């Protein structure tokens, strides 16, 4: 009898394990909170503030997604992941969505069985060197010691760049951004390379940011975006359209300040559809009617989030550049909400 119970329990556990990830939205709703994978600490993108509350550009996306699902931007738990364990954490179901400045590549999309749901930051790999070295171009870096975060696409780009220019270098693989910073500042490496946005964020946390320059060469395309697991298209749709809602809100001039007013009074049918006062887009996604409104309310629209955490008014000081709206000459372009 006890044996039967034991085997029955095992079989049930096995069955439960295999269907656990079938419907992520159900799981998230049952749990009552979203679990979002972020970086272990990159100023401006995801880092705890003085009160231990996670804040940043990537974190804001997770809060918007939690807002869209629960109407509560704080119904989210953050799980800091390193570059090496992020994909296994996602595929094992430890996190529901990964918003961790991750580059969209074919291999990661196809072979690692992820679904990238869009691009929230168009980036490229750059180099930072101390000003006193007098280096003005990455092509002058022959023989330099380069600190690099291991397990990233930057590692492969770096090898390609130096091979293409036929110059040599000494890689120093490092696990986290904080360790890289320590080694770079102590002069254990001449150069630190990662995405240009990451370099700007890292430099902003230095005591004397002015003593370091970011070289003009951008050696790769690094479209960074949130991603989810393969195999749950419904969940991917929710994640994708939440990001699109933030981008569309900026384009339509919907901000966290005027959103309530617009919802009550707008004449613009596109805004009305986005905010759920017209049509049934929320229902199609399996969410409430005001899902996009809650998403934008969480931390503001895409432009507001950008300016708040990494824009030119912040210590990170990044210009919009490629990340401006398509109407302003950038690449941010949300498909129509209809």
């Amino acid at each position, binding site marked *: 009898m006890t044996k039967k119970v034991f085997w029955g329990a095992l079989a049930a556990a096995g069955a439960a394990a295999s269907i656990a990830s079938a419907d992520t939205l159900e799981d998230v709703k049952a749990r009552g909170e979203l679990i979002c994978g972020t970086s272990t600490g990159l100023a401006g993108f995801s880092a705890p503030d003085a009160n231990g509350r996670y804040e940043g550009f990537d974190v804001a996306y997770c809060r918007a997604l939690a807002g869209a699902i629960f109407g509560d931007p704080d119904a989210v738990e953050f799980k800091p992941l390193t570059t090496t364990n992020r994909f296994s954490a996602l*595929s094992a179901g430890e996190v529901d969505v990964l918003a961790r400045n991750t580059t969209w590549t074919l291999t990661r999309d196809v072979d690692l*069985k992820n679904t990238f749901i869009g691009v929230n930051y168009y980036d490229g790999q750059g180099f930072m060197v101390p000003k006193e070295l007098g280096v003005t171009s990455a092509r002058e870096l022959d023989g330099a010691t380069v600190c690099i975060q291991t397990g990233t696409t930057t*590692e492969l780009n770096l090898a390609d760049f130096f091979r293409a220019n036929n110059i040599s270098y000494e890689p120093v693989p490092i696990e986290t951004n904080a360790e890289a910073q320590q080694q770079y500042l*102590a*002069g*254990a490496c001449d150069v630190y390379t990662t995405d240009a946005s990451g370099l700007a964020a890292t430099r902003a946390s230095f005591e004397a940011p002015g003593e370091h320059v970011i070289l003009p060469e951008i050696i790769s395309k690094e479209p960074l975006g949130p991603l989810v697991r393969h195999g749950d298209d419904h969940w991917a749709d929710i994640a994708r359209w939440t990001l699109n809602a933030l981008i569309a809100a900026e384009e339509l001039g919907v901000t966290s300040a005027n959103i309530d007013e617009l919802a009550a009074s707008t004449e613009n049918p596109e805004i009305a559809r986005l905010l759920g006062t017209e049509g049934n887009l929320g229902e199609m996604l399996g969410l409430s009617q005001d899902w996009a409104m809650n998403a934008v309310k969480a931390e503001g629209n895409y432009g507001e989030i950008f300016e708040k955490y990494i824009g030119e008014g912040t210590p990170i000081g990044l210009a919009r550049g490629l990340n401006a709206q398509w109407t302003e000459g950038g690449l941010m372009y949300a498909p129509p909400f209809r």
Partner: protein
Amino acid sequence: MATASDPPQGGFQFSQLIYDTRYRSMTIQVATLIGVLALFFWLGANVTQNLADLGKPIDFGFLGEPAGYDINQRLIEYDNQDIHARAAFVGLLNTLLVAFLGCTLATVIGVLVGVLRLSHNWLVARVMTIYVETFRNVPVLLWIVLAMAVMIEALPQPRDFRGDDPAASMVFDAAAFTNRGVYIPEPLFSRSLGDFSFFGIFDISIDLLAILAVLGAGIYAAKLIGRQADRIQNRTGLRPTTWYKTLGVIVVPVLAVLAILGFHLGYPELKGFNFGGGIHLRNSLIALWLALSFYTAAFIAEIVRGGIMAISKGQSEAAAALGLRPSRTMRLVILPQALRVIIPPLISQYLNLTKNSSLAIAVGYMDLTGTLMGITLNQSGRELECVLLTMLVYLAISLCISGAFNIYNQRVKLKER
């Protein structure tokens, strides 16, 4: 009347498997074995099935694809166009290098500290106690990170060596201690014999092989001289002085070979961003090596101390009565007996050190965990395959080490006749 009872006849009944003590233990063992096998089979089948459902069936094909990343410390030729399998092999050699260096240094320090802890000098004995208790009671990862941090922060940068009045200078103009590692002179041969290709996988320097061969022959000759001295001592009671002969047969031929090959040193010098020439011992290697050695040495010291204390006091008293000096008592009487107690636990310390070397990634040392379990796993996304392969390799290394030392243990253990 033949009423004596015959043993009950009758066929074998299945209930006997449980109620008959002759069979019961066997039944339980077989049932347990089947249960355990079924559990493992169930786990394995479940994993395979789930991976297949995810669209990621187990496949080792990625090992043959170009790795695409660079490795800083390479004992064999490697560039980023080589395949993942070769990158893993480069990592394996780095693991073996730090394990070998670590075991050697840990043994030297451990034996020294273990003996000194028994010293009658109060200060020496206390200092050694403090060393042992500090090192073995703090996790080795912290020692590794500390060693790295000290090297990075305390030593000068290569650019401090530049200029007319540099902030740092080289030791004897030959070795440079920088926060990127230590640069030491490298041996060069102007009349080199070239390399010998090992099945086209990697090259071995014939110069090195020649030197090792001559050195081996010299040591063998020295052993013969020692044996002859033994014979003379047994016959006459007087031991002839042999040290100059021994030294001669070991050193002179090696020096001769070095001269024939045109041995000279290549000194490191500042070139561009870094030192060029010479051998670059990276600070990741040094930090890992020293931290692992000092940590493991603390355990070895305790094993050595225990081994020595296990030898009865009568042995050293008897040796003293024969007129042996204390150093000879230790070398000829105590240590050979203590070794029997020391070696088995020593093997497990060597295994620990080798396995602890997988913490290398904390300081960016590209060992097997850093290459196969690190970058290759990340770039290919083959978690299960990489983990299984890495486990298999560590298992193989550990079995080789323990196999080799078990043979040695057989030779030194107490021979009972």
